[in-house]
């Protein structure tokens, strides 16, 4: 690195996260909460929060980019590799998309190649501490090169699909992939 900031096009660094809860703040009982991986797989899997803590294997510092134009730099993220979770369910060769459902019924969709990226994680901690409720406790997606609406909070199901279907923001015209460096904000 040459020390200069490397900010994606159209983004501006701000000091802290803006919190969005488009469908409200869900109540979470971590004792009964589970994450399911299902869909076009050979083996459906269900994980408890304790299971995921034991599987956590990734830690890195990356910036967060919201599609509205703000970014927060140098956030430490810790969690479980999405690749590990997906491969444990033995997805069929036909899988092309990862459809994510949250406890609040928020949905989004991610291309399988982005979900399998080495930095794509199910995040359990931010900056050394468990996620707060507002940040998606017990678990949220984080993929550094995709806009934040793909980083669904309060995740409850990951469904592997051979076909595309809109999630919440995609139904309102936002991009199927949402790559921040290509400025993929909208479909058109």
């Amino acid at each position, binding site marked *: 690195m040459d020390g200069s900031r490397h900010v994606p*096009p*159209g*983004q501006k660094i701000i000091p802290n996260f803006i919190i969005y809860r*488009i*469908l409200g703040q869900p109540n979470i009982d971590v004792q009964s909460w589970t994450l399911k991986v299902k869909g076009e797989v050979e083996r459906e899997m269900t994980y408890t929060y304790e299971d995921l803590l034991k599987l956590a294997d990734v830690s890195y510092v990356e910036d967060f980019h919201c*599609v*509205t*134009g703000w970014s927060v730099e140098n956030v430490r993220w810790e969690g479980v590799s999405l690749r590990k979770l997906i491969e444990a369910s033995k997805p069929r060769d036909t899988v092309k998309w990862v459809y994510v459902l949250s406890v*609040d*019924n*928020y*949905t989004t969709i991610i291309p399988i190649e982005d979900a399998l990226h080495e930095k794509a994680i199910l995040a359990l901690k931010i900056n050394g501490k468990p996620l707060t409720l507002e940040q998606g406790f017990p678990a949220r997606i984080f993929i550094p090169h995709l806009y934040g609406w793909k980083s669904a909070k309060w995740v409850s199901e990951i469904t592997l699909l051979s076909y595309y*279907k*809109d*999630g*919440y923001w*995609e*139904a*309102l*015209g936002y991009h199927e992939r949402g790559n921040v460096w290509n*400025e993929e*904000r*909208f*479909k*058109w």
Partner: protein
Amino acid sequence: MLRCHLKDSHALKPKGIGNVLECLPLATIRVEDLTQLSSIIGEAVHHVEGFWGEALTYSFSENEPIGTDYIIYTYRVFRSSDKSYLGSCRVVTHKNFVKSVICTISSSQR
């Protein structure tokens, strides 16, 4: 001129939205002012009027930037007869050119 199609939207049902009308411009439309955008919304809403079979009215609500090049202009849509709220329309613009018009239709109002 817009090309529009109406689609079901399972993903927006938690927000009480049953359908989405998606419109794309058939020619380049440069944004001049809100009055001009109102006429574009009117054209989009006309497609929804066929869906409902009754007259609709609309009013500007807000606009917001998305990054540095996009601005979304939001309009609220009402039933003309009793002014009840039916949904909203969002005009997505890029560098002041219309990219799409997306109208969301409340599922309780069908």
